[in-house]
């Protein structure tokens, strides 16, 4: 539903007659005006098709170079992924990178908006090869990661799992949506149950149905995963920077990844 509303909103942005301020790519700042409530700004910038300029984060060639177009073997194809395919070569499926790019831009835009609204974003990944990378990038973005065994009920029974009332994430980003080749990550289902929007890199053997923003692409190759991580990190940081700038807070210190803001007792 969220996805639908945002699509509508992006179309709104293209309508004529909207103020120049909304159409301009760079947010205008005038020191003389009265400070507004940030909630009003949050609503307004939603109408912009690409407020955080995520379209310039990558090109289709970048995707190609990072080997995003490689799918799995033909036999493992999930029928629901058929629309995103370009074809098959030597028995391996190839993604249509133009479609991937547009899906990825939607996803990045959404992530930036969530970050702008001070949302909690969790990176998921069950591939041990890429786990360290994902954790590191999540820390650099000042966000959260879960790359380990998923204990059931972290979302659906959170208050018991954490022994306290706990704020759940506002966005889950799945760098792969599978636990192994056979089974889907349980968090995909649980996030859907709890109405938490999700972004997921779906390979040719995955089911995109429960993912709010599916991005068809290779989810195994470290080069591809690194590209996704960098893109999402940058989009999130853009959202955060914008918010801090509007609120007049000092800029984020991005030189050192922050693992925790307060030392734990």
């Amino acid at each position, binding site marked *: 539903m969220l996805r639908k509303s945002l699509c509508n909103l992006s179309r709104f942005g293209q309508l004529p007659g909207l103020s120049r301020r909304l159409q301009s790519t760079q947010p205008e700042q005038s020191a003389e005006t009265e400070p507004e409530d940030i909630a009003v700004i949050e609503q307004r910038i939603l109408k912009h098709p690409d407020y955080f300029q995520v379209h310039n984060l990558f090109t289709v060639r970048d995707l190609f170079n990072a080997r995003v177009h490689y799918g799995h073997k033909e036999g493992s194809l999930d029928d629901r992924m058929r629309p995103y395919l370009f074809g098959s070569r030597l028995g391996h499926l190839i993604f249509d990178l133009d479609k991937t790019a547009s899906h990825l831009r939607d996803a990045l835009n959404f992530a930036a908006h969530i970050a702008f609204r001070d949302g909690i974003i969790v990176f998921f990944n069950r591939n041990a090869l890429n786990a360290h990378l994902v954790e590191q990038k999540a820390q650099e973005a000042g966000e959260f990661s879960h790359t380990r065994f998923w204990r059931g009920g972290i979302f659906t029974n959170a208050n018991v*799992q954490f022994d306290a009332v706990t704020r759940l994430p506002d966005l889950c980003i799945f760098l792969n949506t599978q636990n192994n080749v056979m089974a889907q990550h349980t968090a995909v289902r649980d996030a859907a149950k709890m109405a938490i929007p999700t972004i997921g890199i779906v390979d040719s053997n995955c089911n995109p149905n429960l993912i709010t923003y599916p991005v068809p692409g290779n989810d195994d190759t470290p080069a591809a995963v690194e590209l996704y991580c960098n893109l999402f990190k940058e989009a999130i940081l853009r959202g955060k920077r914008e918010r801090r700038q509007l609120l007049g807070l000092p800029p984020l210190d991005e030189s050192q990844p922050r693992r*925790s803001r307060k030392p734990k007792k």
Partner: protein
Amino acid sequence: MAVRVFGVNLIKTNRNLLQNACKTPATTFGHTAVAQLATEVTVQASPAAVQKQKVSKAMRAYLKRANEHDEFMKTQHLEFQIGKRHLANMMGADAETFTQEDINEAISYLFPSGLYDPKARPAMKSPEEVFPARKAAEFDETGRPFHSMFYTGKPNFFQLLHDIVEETRKLADLEERMLRRGNKPDENQKLEMSGFQLLPKDQLELVLVESIADIEYSNFTNSMDRLIASPYAYKSKAFIERFLKPLLDQSKQLEVPKPKIDEQGRQFITTYECLRKTARADVTIRLPGTGKISINGKDISYFEDENCREQLLFPLQFSEMLGKVDVEANVEGGGPSGQAGAIRWGIAMSLRSFVDQEMIESMRLAGLLTRDYRRRERKKFGQEGARRKYTWKKR
């Protein structure tokens, strides 16, 4: 006040300097004042938006719980103080100087208990000891957790695994670079791992303040082993040593007494308080000797049982001192096997003064220097003895 004026002037005159002052962490007092003022002023001048302060449901729930806990602890503390005062009055002591030891003594005197398990006996301790400390809030007032891996449920443990991988990769990079340059790791600096072991699971749990599963602990040991196996592991010595524990060489820990000289010019050593079951013995060993054994004035025939005699001779035979030393023992209490065990332990402990370090270590490994704490097991009701059941035939 002077600092304040200075800060305001600075704001008016030089904006750039001000922004730098905001970014860099302030160290001196003057700087701090400027930085504080600066943020105030910039907030007033430039922001295009303001945010309504929201407190999340999570934080509200936490604050409520924390308040309740504080209240509870306060009443518990009060009750403890009153109880202490009552006990002190009953014992005729000064309530102000009544210590925890006095409390324990008073309770065991006023409420004598025959219960077997000490935990089941009445006790009074301060509430801090009785109720374990609770974790502080793990999230800020908007409900955003502090730790990047909060949602795993074991953030400290998984952060540790992450750090180990980080270190391992650093060392692998270094190895690669050194290999290209043709350098070899320094053999002299090699990490000495003998005499050390990785923290056992329970201690690691204490360090992390999290309980971890067996499989997670084995993940930890595997990744630590991989880190330690690197030829450049000495570069991460400080990190590795945080999770090492020295292995205790127990025979080194116990100090071996030096033998004294008696009137006949012979070396001798006496071990007092050799205990086994309810027997108690003092054992004296003299060197050089002829293998004479005297127990309460009698020779080895003091023990009628062959098993007990063997017990007695075993440490002498094990250390190959049979026939080279004289043994004198005074023993009381207990039965034959307890007495024999007490003397055996005494002989072994005394012999340490007359053998080399290697033999002491092998005696320790053979269990000769270990006190045997086993006691008689009580008879149970409904049973004939400690374990034996009454004979019972269905019909």
